[in-house]
């Protein structure tokens, strides 16, 4: 891949909760375009990286930059406005809302109308709402959910809930989409389907940064991979480089074989 431009840059980041050092001196760069993978065993600190990038947690040390601007200290909604969206390891869709409403929540910042527009139902307000609804339908159709648009999100299957979470995140018009174990808990055929969706999203020009547990799955999907173990980056590079890294084999693959 020939994408020298860096989208997200994480430098010397540390995070501790009291005496528990969850991340230590973590550095890596997510290039624009393509799919970047972050892997590592349970409790390695992967989700914590996402929580730092999205502003849910503040780093104890180090810098996080997106398109050359620091994200540290910004509240989460402003980080979203800058172009970073995410999904959650434990799906967090709005269950009491329809699929369409879920996606329209993601568009919040892009709906430009004020109090007067709302009260008097101005034509500008109606037009903006109409456009948002159309865009929401479009996003749902990207994921094959458009015929379920009016359904309550609570009634969706697990796999469809994941897809809805993708659509809702895309609605914020991100440049980089963070996916936290998007295929966790799915059966093999669902995994394959979702993998295709992730490739589709990449092909539409969004940067994808995903956490994954399943080694085989990431290897086939990602352009570059960082490996986190006990809060430290132990390897970074192309899937082949990572696959053949001795430390990774010991720390990660070895463990998996033990388990198998």
């Amino acid at each position, binding site marked *: 891949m020939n994408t020298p431009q860096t989208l997200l840059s994480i430098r010397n980041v540390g995070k501790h909760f009291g005496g528990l050092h969850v991340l230590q001196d973590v550095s890596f760069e997510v290039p624009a375009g393509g799919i970047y993978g972050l892997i590592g065993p349970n409790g390695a600190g992967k989700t914590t990286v996402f929580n730092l990038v*999205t502003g*849910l947690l503040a780093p104890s040390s180090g810098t996080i930059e997106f398109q050359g601007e620091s994200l540290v200290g910004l*509240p*989460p*909604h402003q980080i*979203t*406005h800058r172009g970073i*969206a*995410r999904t*959650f390891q434990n799906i*967090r*869709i*709005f*269950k*009491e*809302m329809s699929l369409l*409403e879920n996606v*329209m*929540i*993601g*568009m*919040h*910042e892009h*709906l430009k*109308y004020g109090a007067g527009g*709302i*009260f008097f*139902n101005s034509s500008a*307000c109606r037009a903006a*709402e109409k456009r948002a609804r159309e865009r929401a339908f479009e996003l749902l159709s990207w994921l094959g959910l458009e015929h379920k648009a009016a359904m309550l999100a609570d009634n969706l299957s697990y796999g469809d809930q994941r897809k809805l979470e993708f659509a*809702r995140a895309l*609605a*914020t018009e991100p440049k980089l989409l963070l996916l936290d174990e998007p295929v966790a808990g799915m059966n093999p055929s669902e995994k394959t389907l979702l993998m295709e969706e992730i490739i589709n999203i990449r092909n539409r020009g969004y940067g994808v940064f995903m956490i994954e547990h399943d080694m085989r799955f990431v290897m086939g999907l990602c352009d570059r991979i960082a490996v986190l173990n006990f809060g430290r980056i132990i390897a970074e590079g192309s899937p082949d480089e990572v696959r053949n890294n001795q430390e990774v084999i010991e720390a990660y693959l070895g463990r998996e074989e033990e388990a198998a």
Partner: protein
Amino acid sequence: MEWFNDFWSTYSTLVFSVGVHALLALSIWLTLSCGLLSLANAAFMGIGAYVSALLTLQLGWSFPLVLLTGGIAPAVVALLIGAPVLRLSGVYLAMATLAFGEVVRITVLNLEITGGPEGLNGIPLETEGWHIAALLALTIYGLARLRRSKVGRAFEAIKEDEVAARLMGINVDRYKLLAFTLGSFIAGVAGALNAHFTFFISPREYGFEAAVDILTMAVLGGISSLIGPLLGSSIITLLPELLRSLHDYRSFVNGAVLVLVVLFLPKGLWDPRRFRKWFGKAKGAEA
């Protein structure tokens, strides 16, 4: 028309109360719809009532201006206390807002200008039926519009999952403050309307009991649509009249109603989802 005149002379106060209580139930509906269990609305109503009554009695302002200021005064207070108070959530927010209510009540009790425990007497009768009807209609319309806009959706998202809402780009703190302040404005206007048809106001009317009453109305009716608070406030206002013998046990009945509803109809009487389950898909439309 004679029957109407008879009816009106007997029941006008009751009809007025239904309208004012509807406004109060809508005011707490607004904060609840944003996931905030705030019990400050009785105090906001009190601030609106006292400020408006004093403006009428001491400065002789015109009634429309009095009503407006009756809403603005508690809204300013809400803006000031909102930033620290709205960091709390759940029971802690409920407790903090109740404590705020006590502070307001005790302040009113001890000030000279508010007449202390005796309250204010001889407030001119300015409120007419159409004032209440018009303001109630305006409020319902405004809230219905809000519900269908990005603001209403943001409230709903915050209620369901605050973290997810933040990560969808919603400025959660700002919207919470908006719900809190708008709610206080509506409660304040309700207080101003009330003060100008009861002749008399005292700190007792805006304390803990009133706060619980207002919550009961909204919870009884249900908060999943605007119909719930209207239904709940009507029932809570009319029930004691229908069961006159129970008048002395009003608080008891309200408390019992609240417990029963929470236990058996957690979404209140008016719950479109339950109706859909009962009556099939035909009744799908939500108000």
